[in-house]
C-alpha cells in the first residue's frame, strides 16, 4: 500500500519535531522520502538536511547515493543556497567520493554561471541524474532567467509567463537625499537658548 506524497510529508514533519529527528532509527523513512522527492519532482529542504545531520552523527550509516540525490535536488532549487547548506554538512572524505565530487563540481559550474560547461559535463555524466525527475528543466529555468535578464530584458514570473520587462524603469540611477525630520532638530533647538 503506497502513501501519497502529502501523507509522507506529513509523517516526516512529525518525525522532525523535537528529539526524534536525531534518532537513527528514523533514517530509513527519511531516505525513502528523499527517493520519493526525486521521483515525483517534489522538494523538502528541511527533511534532506535532517538526513545529512543523521549521517554526520552516525557516519556508519552514510549513504553516497542518498547524499548525491540530496545535492542534486538542492541544485534544482537555485538560486536558493541549499547546495551550500548541504556542503557544510558533508565531511571532506565523503566529499571526495564518486559521484559526490562530480556533483560538487557541477554545482560550482552553476554558481559561477559557466552554463555551457555545465551542460557539456552533464552530457558526459548523464547517469548521475538518473531518477531525478525534472532536474534539467529546473536547472534550465534557473540558467535562462539569468541569461534572459541580461540579453533581452525578459523575465519569467512565478506562473511561468514571460513578459517583457522594461529594465530602464527599474535599473535607474537613484539619488537618495537625506531627510532630516523635525524631531531630531527640535531637541537641539531647545538647548540652544
Amino acid at each position, binding site marked *: 500500500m503506497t502513501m501519497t506524497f502529502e501523507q509522507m510529508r506529513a509523517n516526516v514533519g512529525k518525525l522532525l519535531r523535537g528529539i526524534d529527528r536525531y534518532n537513527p532509527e528514523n533514517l530509513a523513512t527519511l531516505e525513502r522520502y528523499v527517493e520519493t522527492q526525486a521521483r515525483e519532482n517534489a522538494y523538502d529542504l528541511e527533511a534532506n538536511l535532517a538526513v545529512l545531520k543523521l549521517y554526520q*552523527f552516525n557516519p556508519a550509516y552514510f549513504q553516497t547515493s542518498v547524499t548525491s540525490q540530496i545535492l542534486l535536488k538542492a541544485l534544482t532549487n537555485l*538560486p536558493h*543556497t541549499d547546495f551550500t547548506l548541504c556542503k*557544510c554538512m558533508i565531511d571532506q572524505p565523503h566529499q571526495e567520493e564518486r559521484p559526490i565530487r562530480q556533483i560538487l563540481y557541477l554545482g560550482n559550474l552553476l554558481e559561477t554561471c559557466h552554463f555551457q560547461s555545465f551542460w557539456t559535463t552533464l552530457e558526459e555524466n548523464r547517469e548521475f541524474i538518473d531518477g531525478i525527475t525534472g532536474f534539467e528543466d529546473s536547472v534550465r529555468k534557473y540558467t535562462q532567467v*539569468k541569461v534572459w535578464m*541580461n540579453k533581452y530584458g525578459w523575465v519569467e514570473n512565478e506562473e511561468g509567463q514571460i513578459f517583457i520587462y522594461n529594465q530602464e524603469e527599474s535599473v*535607474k540611477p537613484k539619488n537618495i537625499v*537625506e531627510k532630516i525630520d523635525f524631531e531630531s532638530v527640535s531637541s537641539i533647538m531647545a538647548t540652544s537658548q
Partner: protein
Amino acid sequence: TRYRIIHDYDLHTGDPKADLAYERQYEHQQTYHVIPEVIKNFLQYFHKTISDLIDQKVYELQANRVSSESIEQKIYEIQDVYENSWNKLTDRFFKTSPWPEAEAIATLVGNDAVFLILYKELYYRHIYAKVSFQSFSQYRCKTAKKSEEEIEFLRSNPKIWNVHSVLNVLHSLVDKSNINRQLEVYTSGGDPESVAGEYGRHSLYKMLGYFSLVGLLRLHSLLGDYYQAIKVLENIELNKKSMYSRVPECQISTYYYVGFAYLMMRRYQDAIRVFANILLYIQRTRNMFQRSTYKYEMINKQNEQMHGLLAIALTMYPMRIDESIHTQLREKYGDKMLRMQKGDLQVFEELFSFACPKFLSPVVPNYDNVHPNYHKEPFQQQLKVFAEEVQQQAQLSTIRSFLKLYTTMPVAKLAGFLDMSEQEFRIQLLVFKHKMKNLVWTSGISALDGEFQSASEVDFYIDKDMIHIADTKVARRYGDFFIRQIHKFEEVKKIKLKW
C-alpha cells in the same frame, strides 16, 4: 522508541589526569566527596528563596492578582544570589572542578524537581565556562599527544559530553517549558500562561526554555547546520524587545550566531543588519558590563569577532550602515577591508578563522586510527565552504569598482579594461547578478523567512552589446552627523557642569 535522557552526567573535567584520578576514586566510593558546609547552607538558602517565590507567585495566580511588590523583592534577591553569591562561591571552592552533581545535593533541597533543573543549568553553565563542552570535544580529538592510558579512558567512556546528551538536555527543557507554544501565543498577542502548562508558567522554566533555544542555535551552528540553527528561533522576533531580551550576554550571543549563520547562507544583507544592530547595542551599553570579568571578556571577544564578520559581509555586499559603526569598523579593519576588496583570499581566511565559532564534530574519533589534526577538521570543512564562496566572487569587487565609473559602454570595451575576454566578462556579469541577489528578511516572525532582493549599490542591464549602469548615489548624511555631534557636546557640557 523515544530518545531517552542519559543520566550519567559525570564529573569529568576534561583534564585527563584529574579525570583518571577521579574515575578511580569514583569506583570505590559511589558518592561525591565531602560537600563543604558553606555550600550546603548556600544551596538550602537558594532553594528556599526560589521556593518562596514560586509559592508566592502560584498563590497570586490562583487569587488572580498581579505580581506584588514582594515578588519583585524576591526576584531581586534571587538575582543577587545568582549573580553574586554563586560566582563568589565558585571562585572559592570550584575554580578548577565542577559543583557537586545534582544527584548529590538533591536531598538537601528536598528533591525539589524545579530547583534541581535550575541547579543543573548552573552546574553545566559552570562546567561550560570553565571546561566547556567545546573544549572537551576538541580535546577529545587532539589524540596524537595523549598517552595510552588516556586513550583507553576516553574509549571506555564515550558518553562524556556526548552531543546527544547535550541535545537531550536542551530539548527536554524546551519541551517541559512549552516555550515554543508560549512564544507563539505571546507574539500573536495572547496570554502565554494559557499554554504554559504546569511548569512553563514559572518564570524560571520559561527562561530556561528560552535559553535552551539559544543553546540549540549555538549547538547547531557549531555543527555547521545553519538552517536548523535559525529555525529553532522561529518563534522569536529578534527585533522586538521582550522580557527575554533583557539578558545582554544572551542577546549578544544570539545575534552573533544568527549573523554568522546568515553569512554562511549568503544572506549578506540580513547578516549586516543583524551585526550592525547588535554592535550598536554593545556600543550603547558598554558601561553596564563591568560587573563580572567573565561576562565582560566574553562580550568583548564577540564584539571583536562581529566586527570582523561585518567587515567580511560588507566587502561581499557593500551597503550603507550606521555611520558610527562604520567608523569603528574602518578603524579596526579598514586596511583588511581594502585588501579583501583587492581579492586577497588570505585576509578573508584569517579573519574568518578569528571570527568564526569553534566548530565541533559530533562524532567520537576512532582512537586507533586518527591523524593528528582530526580536531581541526570541522573548522577546515566550514572554512573550505567559505573560501569557495569567496573565490567564486573573486572578480566581483573589481568589476563593481569599474561599473561605478561609467553609465553606458560597449560590453566588449569594458571587458578590455578589465583584461577579460568578452565571453568571460559576460559570465562574470551573470555571477554578479546571481550573488548580489540575496534572500532578505522583510516581515514575519521567523528569521528564516525572506524574499529575494537585490539592494546592490550598483546595478546594470545589457541591451545587445551595450551595458547600462545605474549607481545608487546616497547623499552623505551631513545633517545626521552634525546632529549627533551636537548631542555629544551637550553631554560633555553636562558632565563638566556637574564638577
